[in-house]
């Protein structure tokens, strides 16, 4: 570049060009330092690219996909994860109830969820939001989920944890143009993260702000990585897809409690099988004054609130 162009826009362009070239150099060096295909073998990269929708894969194809996920996690996080494909239990539809007179807003559930579901620690994404509202107020537009007082509960406030309601007539599923999200036979609305194109129509369709878009590659310390994972649940996700609460599918399908319920110190959360008339959730539905959020929308959430 000539000296005349060294100031003003041209000069900036020159600088930008040089930075770009330098970046290119670093990029090339990185590409040389890392194995090709983003750390995968050519076969893995090829197979991932041509991987089918979860519901169209044969058992062998799913098995191969699970192994690819495990190899990729080993490469990305240096952790040996166990990615499973536990099927739904017959005769089980999950339901959740929260006792809002006992919830104190500690946010233990939020952070247990982040850990359990391998959410990026810097990604600004959390599946559960605990709303703080004035007592007697149920206008969600007045709610604040960024509350940070010295101690909770704050006098005159009440707390309302909100997460995916696992609607029985889910509007997000109808909105998806590529059928990357659907309701499983046990009532859990799941996402095939490898099939999702990241268009975020489902986020616009969800009336509960329960779906979240991951803008960044999740940063998870290797020692905090949860190695118990499920294809449709908490396995490491790619960047740029939509995620949501899946009732801890990797735990609940094996009879364990969801992580948020286990973490709740107040016992406000009650989870169980809606089809079992003797279950705890059915006792709550039969004996407590329950309500659902935005019930008038007709999405039939399988998530109830009650107070006693």
């Amino acid at each position, binding site marked *: 570049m000539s000296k005349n162009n060294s100031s003003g826009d041209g000069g900036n362009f020159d600088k930008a060009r040089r930075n770009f070239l330098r970046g290119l150099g670093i990029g090339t060096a990185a590409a040389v330092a890392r194995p090709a295909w983003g750390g995968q073998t050519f076969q893995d990269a090829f197979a991932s690219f041509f991987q089918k929708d979860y519901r169209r894969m044969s058992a062998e194809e799913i098995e191969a996909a699970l192994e690819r996920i495990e190899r990729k996690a080993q490469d990305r996080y240096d952790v040996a994860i166990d990615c499973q494909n536990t099927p739904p239990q017959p005769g089980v539809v999950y339901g959740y109830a929260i*006792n809002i007179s006992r919830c*104190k*807003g*500690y*946010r*233990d559930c*939020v*952070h247990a969820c982040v850990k359990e579901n391998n959410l990026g620690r810097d990604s*600004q994404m*959390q599946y559960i*939001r605990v709303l703080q509202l004035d007592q007697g107020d149920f206008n969600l*537009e*007045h709610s*604040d*989920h*960024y*509350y*940070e*007082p*010295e*101690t*909770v*509960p704050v006098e005159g406030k009440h707390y309302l944890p909100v997460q995916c309601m696992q609607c029985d007539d889910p509007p997000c599923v109808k909105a998806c143009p590529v059928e990357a999200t659907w309701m499983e036979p046990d009532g859990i609305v799941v996402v095939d993260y490898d099939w999702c194109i990241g268009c975020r129509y489902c986020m616009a369709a969800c009336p509960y702000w329960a779906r979240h878009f991951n803008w960044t590659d999740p940063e998870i310390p290797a020692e905090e990585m949860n190695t118990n994972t499920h294809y449709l649940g908490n396995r490491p996700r790619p960047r740029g897809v939509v995620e949501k609460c899946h009732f801890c599918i990797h735990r*609940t399908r094996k*009879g*364990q*409690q969801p992580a948020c*319920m*286990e973490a*709740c*110190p*107040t*016992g406000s959360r*009650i*989870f*169980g*099988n809606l089809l079992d008339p*003797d*279950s*705890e959730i059915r*006792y*709550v539905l039969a*004996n*407590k004054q329950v309500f659902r959020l935005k019930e008038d929308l007709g999405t039939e959430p399988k998530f109830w609130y009650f107070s*006693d």
Partner: protein
Amino acid sequence: MNSRILQCLVCIICLVLIPAEAQETPDGQQALRFEGYPGTHEFDVVPRKDDLFFYPCTQCHAAMEPNPEIRPLNAIHDSDLEHGRGRIWCLSCHDLENRDYLRTLLAELVDFDAAHLVCGGCHANRHEDWYFGAHGKRIGNWQGDRTLYNCTHCHNAHSPAIKARAPKPAPPVRAGLKLERGIAHEKSSIWDTPEEHEEQ
């Protein structure tokens, strides 16, 4: 009709002749026989005695003269009993003679591991909810064997209200967004009121 009466008779006779298993306490008194609320599933309760610092109480109390008088305590026991706000006293729940046991209002002895039976004497609604799973905390699973925490795991029996504590950190505010606390839609400038609109 006759057969039904017969069935009832047989049931009553069985109930009279076959008493439920009861714990024997040191004095030969029968411990409480509470069969639970009808329709509940069986469950285990997490034992409490291992966590009790001073248990067994007879370590000290064996050498002390029982004193039923209501008085301020000055030893290791806090006399500031918040539970009941002055309406109850140690011996409402603790037995004077058998220090290692609790007692119900009917003077039945209850093991410390089954403290919920004492709580249930007054808080029957909560107790029933706890049996059916609408109150309290189940451990580990939603399916299979039920294990519940005892009332006294979460509530300090002498001051049962749960104390306020610090919440876990708030979620980060999305990049590019600004946190404006307490601003409802109607107060925001982009929502004109009809009057303002007419003025313009």
